[in-house]
């Protein structure tokens, strides 16, 4: 690695850390319904949204009602995306006359975008009309991100509330997050990206005669608006098949920096906002530090693995599946960022990364997207692990475990176990089924252990709602479209619903002032314990599978073997 590589990574983190507090504070004010800097600009839009949907933002919802409003809204969202896709040949803004999308692919895409996964089983430029991309996919890019942040806010209110039932109002959280945070940020980002060369138009594809006399068809479309929110909202579904490796989606090193920054911007700010909402900034800082520790471990391993020589090709830092303008360091930085968050966009092809680089990408997803994680869901996923850690620490010292002044009871722990085990099971059972079914093996793009890695990666990303891929796997088949959609649903709602249940249970409890025997959750010891619990639960659960894939591939690569 060169000095310039380190400087770019340092600049990235400097800008991210500088933006986290102000954005987090803004987000917290918005979620509390207070006046904020954008109130004069977008306040009317918030009120108009309530009128349009006919909702009362002041009405308190208990956890079950909050969950049911959320689930209905998500269900209608998925139905809308499905309908637009299958009917796109009869709808406007389809200059390439693309046919309606096949039902299984449309179902996978609808579920995947509604759950904030944004997996691309399809190739957008040859499958999706402009109307489908903007009305179907962009809409879910916004509201699935806002849904995650809403649940984080509800959890914070549950932890803060004292013997109450209400967790706030889902519609208010959804609308406020969308109009005061996501829309303004996405608008600014989209313009910056369009200035760098990301296309934004509604023209039919350009057919040009090349210098050598060939014909090239250049895909166009309203990309900048979609790329901005797919980066900011932990979404990741590209406007083009090559995602942010496509020069029309990510044309310059500066656009790369902006898009990469957008991946972690809100996930990091969410931790800050959470600290303000629970009025315990030290605890939030502890969570942030634990996330950063895991992040650093992952990035360090990835950089080392990618810059180490590959004896098969007698090359280090291989350029296969990478773009010249970004180089290797920016590709690895993005790969780390996009997998620790549930973003899933790519600026290089993960399938062609070194075995251990790909393994870290998988591990980042297998821990359940809690290393900053997706917008909102990174925080609430981390709180699941926090409660588990507090519970285990309580068992070790023989005291009733407490978290933020609330006693943790059997109900909480039961929900925690559900939230951790079900996505785990979805990965393992799904990958195991794919390994023995002909339909699962049919789509492999690589042989040997790397083929197994492709399958494991697919189910890891699906249950983590990530959406990135070892894209050699052809997953646009009945089997993968349906199996991965099921994993999306489990990965999203088997965490989200338990978290709301925990929030409801916590809200009903009385506050117990901390005593000398309370286990502190805001110091380095706790951060270390939390990191250990995450590693023990996730790494041990998947170590055997990782041995069969990337680890054995790494050693065979060192021995010069090919498949």
């Amino acid at each position, binding site marked *: 690695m060169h000095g310039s590589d380190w400087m770019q990574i340092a600049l990235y983190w400097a800008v991210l850390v500088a933006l986290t507090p102000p954005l987090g504070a803004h987000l917290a004010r918005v979620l509390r319904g207070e006046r904020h800097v954008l109130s004069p600009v977008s306040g009317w839009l918030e009120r108009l949204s309530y009128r349009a949907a006919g909702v009362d933002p002041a009405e308190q919802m208990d956890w079950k009602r909050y969950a049911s409003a959320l689930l209905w809204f998500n269900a209608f969202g998925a139905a809308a995306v499905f309908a637009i896709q299958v009917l796109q040949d009869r709808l406007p803004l389809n200059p390439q006359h693309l046919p309606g999308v096949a039902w299984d692919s449309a179902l996978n895409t609808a579920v995947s975008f509604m759950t904030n996964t944004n997996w691309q089983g399809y190739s957008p430029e040859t499958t999706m009309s402009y109307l489908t991309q903007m009305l179907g996919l962009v809409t879910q890019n916004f509201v699935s991100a806002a849904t995650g942040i809403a649940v984080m806010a509800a959890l914070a209110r549950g932890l803060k509330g004292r013997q109450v039932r209400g967790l706030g109002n889902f519609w208010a959280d959804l609308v406020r997050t969308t109009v005061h945070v996501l829309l303004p940020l996405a608008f600014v980002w989209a313009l910056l990206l369009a200035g760098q060369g990301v*296309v934004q138009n509604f023209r039919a594809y350009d057919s040009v005669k090349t210098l*050598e006399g060939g014909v090239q068809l250049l895909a166009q479309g309203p990309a900048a608006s979609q790329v901005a929110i797919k980066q900011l909202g932990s979404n990741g579904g590209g406007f083009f098949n090559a995602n942010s490796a496509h020069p029309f989606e990510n044309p310059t090193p500066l656009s790369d920096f902006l898009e990469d920054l957008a991946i972690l911007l809100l996930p990091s700010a969410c931790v800050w906002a959470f600290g303000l909402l629970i009025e315990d900034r030290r605890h939030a800082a502890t969570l942030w530090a634990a996330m950063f520790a895991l992040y650093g471990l992952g990035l360090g391993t990835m950089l080392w693995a990618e810059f180490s020589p590959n004896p098969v090709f007698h090359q280090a830092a291989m350029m296969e599946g990478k773009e010249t303008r970004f180089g290797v360091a920016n590709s690895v930085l993005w790969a780390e960022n996009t997998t620790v968050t549930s973003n899933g966009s790519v600026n290089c092809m993960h399938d062609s990364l070194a075995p251990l680089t790909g393994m870290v990408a998988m591990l980042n997803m297998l821990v359940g997207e809690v290393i900053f994680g997706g917008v909102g869901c990174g925080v609430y996923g981390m709180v699941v692990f926090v409660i588990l850690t507090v519970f285990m620490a309580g068992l070790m010292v023989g005291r009733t475990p407490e978290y933020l002044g609330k006693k943790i009871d059997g109900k909480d722990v039961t929900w925690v176990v559900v939230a951790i085990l079900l996505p785990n099971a979805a990965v393992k059972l799904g990958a195991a089924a794919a390994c023995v079914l002909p339909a699962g093996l049919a789509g492999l793009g690589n042989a040997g252990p790397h083929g197994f890695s492709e399958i494991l990666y697919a189910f890891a990303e699906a249950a983590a709602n990530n959406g990135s891929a070892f894209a050699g796997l052809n997953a646009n088949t009945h089997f993968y479209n349906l199996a991965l959609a099921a994993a999306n649903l489990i990965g999203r709602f088997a965490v989200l619903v338990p978290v709301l249940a925990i929030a409801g249970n916590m809200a009903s409890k009385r506050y117990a002032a901390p005593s000398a025997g309370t286990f502190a959750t805001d110091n380095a010891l706790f951060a270390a314990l939390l990191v250990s619990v995450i590693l023990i639960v996730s790494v041990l659960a998947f170590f055997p599978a990782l041995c069969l894939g990337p680890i054995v591939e790494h050693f065979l690569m060192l021995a010069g073997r090919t498949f």
Partner: protein
Amino acid sequence: MKDLTAALRMTAWMTLLCGGLYTLAVTGASRWAFRDSAEGSLIERGGVVVGSALIAQKFTSQRYFWERPSAVDYNPQPSGGSNLGPTSAALKQAVDQRRVALEKADPGEGEPPQDLLFASASGLDPDISPAAALYQVDRVAQARGFGPARTARLRTLVEAAVEGPQWGLLGEPRVNVLKLNLALDAMDRP
């Protein structure tokens, strides 16, 4: 029931707001502020569009600088990489073939720069490394019948075509192949 109706109306409203109005607002603003770049950074020669500065074209003639290998044969329908892994025999074979072809086309230049051996992520990478451009200078000059003086001018042309890191820090130094080939044609015009 109340939430069911609200969910339906909210879905419709958010589709209109985030899908429709937001996309149109971005389109309007970017057309006003960044017309060329939002339209695909198209390059014209003699009033005819010959490509986009951002999208690689297929060059096979000895008279032009070549792009990086493309897994989609420079056809953006759809874009993408090879997705071959680090122990792939198919990738090994492809790289060996490319090395042989390059060493035959550019004799005496030694081991080809690795960006010419490995395919890009998008299949449309418009850039090559400065080393990869310099590697091809002698071949292009010979194919066009350049003497030593014009070959030296070509080398200067390539060096001038190198874009450094953006703002002096971001990204890698690179040469845009389509722009370089257009400059080459302009220089070679009698």
